[in-house]
């Protein structure tokens, strides 16, 4: 038995060390970025910074590429999330509550933008929009973002819907409620937290996207992430760090909302 205890002790130490290393690996780079964003020096240099400065935040706010990009990101993210959420509610309801042939195929098809390389999605949509004559970049971005965010709303809402059996809906209908009333008064309240989590997920992915949008944006409408990508192709100066801290603010907002809506453990359990 002694032998087992020693083995277990080593196992425990190993797992703990791995976890500590993992958490450091995940957090250190981000902490470095936060420090750099307050660095008064005009170049990337060894840390820690010798002083404190808000110059990079000022530089971010003075650059119309970034402020306009942020505005476009919020518009594209907001509108495409709204559309994806409605599309997602309907599609999930059809996929979860009905039996029909080809259901699995349709389901994997709706989730396929998660697996298709994002650059391929963006590149193929560029061709389609060019063929159809969709020339306004805001429209192109909106349609593309519905395609890339709908899988997230469909997945999250489906997972929530599976958790509730249909007996409540059946009860409402046997008491005389019609289908629309049942849907609005019973189904929607049941799944509303899943809907919120799915919408947050969709908005986060829209804000994050570069690989698809980069083919569809132009000088008139381009998202913040795409503009930061373009900026980083010429320089890594700390204005990007200031933008990163702003984007991290969004990230924490998303996590707070998801925690309130469905709890992080449930969210992680759904997977990607």
């Amino acid at each position: 038995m002694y032998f087992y205890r020693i083995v277990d002790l080593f196992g425990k130490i190993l797992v703990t060390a791995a976890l500590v290393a993992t958490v450091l690996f995940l957090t250190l780079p981000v902490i470095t970025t936060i420090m750099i964003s307050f660095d008064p020096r005009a170049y990337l240099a060894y840390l820690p910074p010798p002083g404190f400065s808000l110059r990079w935040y000022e530089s971010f706010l003075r650059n119309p590429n970034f402020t306009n990009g942020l505005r476009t990101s919020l518009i594209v993210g907001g509108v495409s999330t709204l559309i994806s959420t409605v599309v997602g509610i309907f599609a999930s309801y059809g996929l979860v509550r009905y039996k029909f042939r080809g259901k699995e195929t349709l389901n994997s098809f709706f989730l396929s933008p998660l697996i298709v390389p994002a650059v391929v999605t963006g590149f193929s949509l560029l061709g389609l929009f060019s063929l159809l004559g969709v020339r306004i970049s805001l429209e192109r971005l909106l349609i593309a973002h519905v395609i890339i965010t709908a899988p997230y709303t469909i997945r999250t809402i489906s997972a929530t819907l599976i958790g509730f059996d249909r007996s409540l809906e059946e009860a409402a209908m046997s008491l005389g409620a019609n289908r629309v009333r049942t849907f609005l008064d019973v189904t929607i309240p049941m799944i509303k937290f899943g809907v919120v989590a799915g919408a947050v997920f969709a908005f986060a992915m829209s804000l994050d996207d570069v690989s698809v949008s980069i083919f569809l944006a132009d000088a008139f409408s381009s998202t913040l992430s795409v503009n930061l990508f373009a900026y980083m192709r010429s320089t890594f100066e700390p204005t990007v760090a200031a933008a990163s801290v702003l984007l991290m603010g969004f990230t924490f907002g998303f996590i707070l909302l998801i925690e309130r809506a469905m709890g992080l453990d449930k969210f992680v359990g759904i997977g990607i």
Partner: protein
Amino acid sequence: MSLDTDESSGRRWLALFLAPAALVFVFLYLGALCLLFVQSLQIYNPGRIVQISGSLTLQNYIEYFGRTLVYYGFLWDTLRIGGIATVISVLIAYPLAYKITRTQRRLLKKTLLTVLVTSFFINSIVKVYSWVIMLADTGLVNGALASLGYDRIRFLGTDLAVAIGLVYFLFPIATMALVGPINNVDQTLEQAAANLGAANTKAFFDITLPLSMPGIIASTLLTYALAVSSFIAPMFLGSGIAPMMSNIIYLRYSETFNYPGGSALAVVLLVTSLSIAYGLNKVLTKRLKGFG
């Protein structure tokens, strides 16, 4: 089936529910992917993006994959670096996923979950920028090396930097894909083995690890399918020296605006990642059969 008392009215409702998503995905998405395939068989005609001509040719594929070995090199680099990053991601994902599902301490569980979800939701630009400044010549890692008296190492532009960046992007996804399967392994089996005198470590290797193997394979394949389509991390951490297929498609297109040529490369990448995903699907259905 009291929801569908009338079969044909049920069908009508179903059609209505699925119509919006079907419209978006069939007409726009499938349409775009089919057009991409057709475009990859067209001859490039400068001045326009989409080519309209009746004749189809394999010329684009021959140009990239028939005359030179360069693009096989890019494809191989993509599969190789993506593969290394995938293996590392899953290896470090497992202990975290295991701890999240098994720990009894609520604070620890909450902390680990928060770190995991945060690292998933951190914006890609933030992720890649953070690693650029970590690995830059005057970055944190080189600063630490210098203060310890070692020479500086040039990271940016190496496969190592790209692989580290990819792990940072993929690791949260690998973990999230593992949490469900590990959670589903019956904990009483582990406890029974431990009660019968096996060390916890032995119980883990005899019971939990084999039973969560389908989950590990599924997580690996999902991670790999996403790894081969990486774009942002190789773009900056590879400094254009170690680019992967997605970068090649973007860079070649933004230089030449040759849409049919880009389409051929895009089709190759698409087939690559869909083959991996097809393997994933096979594993998942086999698992359902095995346990159902």
